[in-house]
């Protein structure tokens, strides 16, 4: 049975990674699960310099989902390399580094730095974080800016480039195509949805940042639709995510058109989820006599 998939020139031993920002820098959950079973480890978003992030409260629970406005707290490129890279480098599975900047040049500079580091599996361009003023969804909802960011990063590195699109557009196919044309090797779909919750007792938003991003099982049907739309528009592979809790959810993303998937919010309440998804996927393939996981990609039957 073949479970391995390719994201640009990166080979993942199986199609299941974790979503950026829901798995720290890998080491934390290494205490609960064997990271070497994963398809790849994807780390929290990094920009050039350290980032303090937003004030608290930063998350709030919602119906079958949650809001977050962490504000991309992080150690910056140097801090990351010093503190977390030695461990990640020691893993048998590739690391996908989620990067961002507030200018096109900063994105490119971060890409250059990780290109120079050596050993990185792929870079994921976060152009879709709803929780920061500059550099987040701004790049992901403006197709001209998106093309600029991807082009600049493409020039800065030969590492596989995954563009993480914003869900908050009426036509995801257009943005998918822009990223592909600008040289992205793959897409990641979807990031969180701009959202809000209010504590009616205090009349204050539940997040200090006022608004945040909605993630978790609640959004899965929207994410499936986005992946399906994008997959029809491009030839490059898609990493599908948004509310995956069970192997069935992952298989649904694959059928919709994803080549790989990422487990996000579910890690917070059930850190075993990525391994359970891999096991369930294997079992499904056995039962259905599917020999290569790539047969699942885009296999939804849509003839009316």
């Amino acid at each position, binding site marked *: 049975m073949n479970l391995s998939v390719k994201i640009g020139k990166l080979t993942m031993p199986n199609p299941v990674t974790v979503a950026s920002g829901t798995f720290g820098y890998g080491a934390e959950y290494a205490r*609960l699960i064997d990271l070497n079973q994963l398809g790849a480890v994807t780390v929290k978003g990094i920009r050039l310099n350290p980032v303090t992030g937003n004030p608290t409260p930063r998350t709030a629970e919602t119906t079958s989902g949650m809001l*977050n406005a962490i504000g991309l707290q992080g150690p910056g490129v140097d801090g990351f390399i010093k*503190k977390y890279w030695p461990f990640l480098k020691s893993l048998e599975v590739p690391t996908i580094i989620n990067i961002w900047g507030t200018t096109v040049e900063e994105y490119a500079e971060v890409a250059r730095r990780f290109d120079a580091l050596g050993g990185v599996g792929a870079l994921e361009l976060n152009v879709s974080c709803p929780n920061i003023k500059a550099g987040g969804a701004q790049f992901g909802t403006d197709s001209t800016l998106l093309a600029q960011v991807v082009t600049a990063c493409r020039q800065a590195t030969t590492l596989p480039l995954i563009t993480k699109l914003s869900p908050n557009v009426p036509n995801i196919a257009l943005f998918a195509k822009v990223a592909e044309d600008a040289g992205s090797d793959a897409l990641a779909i979807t990031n969180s949805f701009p959202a809000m919750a209010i504590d009616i007792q205090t009349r204050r938003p539940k997040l200090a940042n006022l608004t945040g991003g909605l993630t978790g099982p609640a959004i899965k049907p929207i994410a499936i639709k986005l992946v399906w739309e994008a997959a029809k528009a491009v030839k490059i592979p898609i990493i599908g995510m948004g509310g995956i809790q069970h192997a069935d959810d992952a298989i649904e993303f694959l059928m919709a058109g994803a080549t790989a998937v990422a487990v996000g919010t579910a890690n917070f*309440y059930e850190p075993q989820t990525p391994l359970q998804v891999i096991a369930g996927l294997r079992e499904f393939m056995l039962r259905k006599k599917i020999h290569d996981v790539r047969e699942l990609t885009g296999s939804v039957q849509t003839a009316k």
Partner: protein
Amino acid sequence: MEHLPRMLEQTAIIVSNKRDTDSYFRLVLRAPQIAPLIQPGQFAHVRILPLKEALLRRPFSIFQVAGDTFSILYKTVGKGTDVLSRMSAGEELSVIAPLGHGFTVPPVGGEIPLLVAGGYGMAAMFLLAQRSPQKGIVFVGGRRRVDILCEQEFAALGWEVRATTEDGSHGEKGLVTQPLLAELRTPHSALRTFKLFACGPTPLLKAVGKLAEDFNLPAELSMDEHMCCGTGVCLTCVIPVKAGESWEYQRTCTEGPVFDSRQIFWEGVK
């Protein structure tokens, strides 16, 4: 790489789940791998499986440890604790524990611990009292009589308990810091050095931090922040901690919940 304490995920069986006072409950869980690892001030992150529509685990301080079981003392405040309070012996919960950096148990002949607790903050302090070689005083405060928990258990350890209630229905009337302040102002022999330990709502922690500064005493505070993952990955639970000239956010679930009061950047604490 940073130091990360050991933690385990386990399906824990409910041994008992009984009302304590009013809206407080005591839950005993069988978790043979976890129980022996627990240090005072650590917490368990509990997935309440029958909870509907809500996904996240709930953090609770570990109250007592006995053999292959540990217990928590919780207050029903919302949907998770409400559903938890309706669960029965034999049912299962998923637990990740022990979590966090707990209290430093004073060394033999070391400081005399003065514990300050508000409401279910008492739960976080029992193991510390039990394992401390020096007996000390526990100052416990609450709104009403029913908010004063497990006095007898501390008394049974040979500790002195000073209770205060805001409505005067039990112990002294007023805030928990009043008798503490009185105690600190009482002249003591030079041999007697105190260390403060506190767990409770943020205003209480702030007040204890202030007393520690005024009396130049060490203090360890268990900070109260909302959590999501409880295991250090999501960066939900941060508080501002001094770092050189400036400050940085540290995780209550990993670097905390117990912090040295002097390390906290109080101006940034809400």
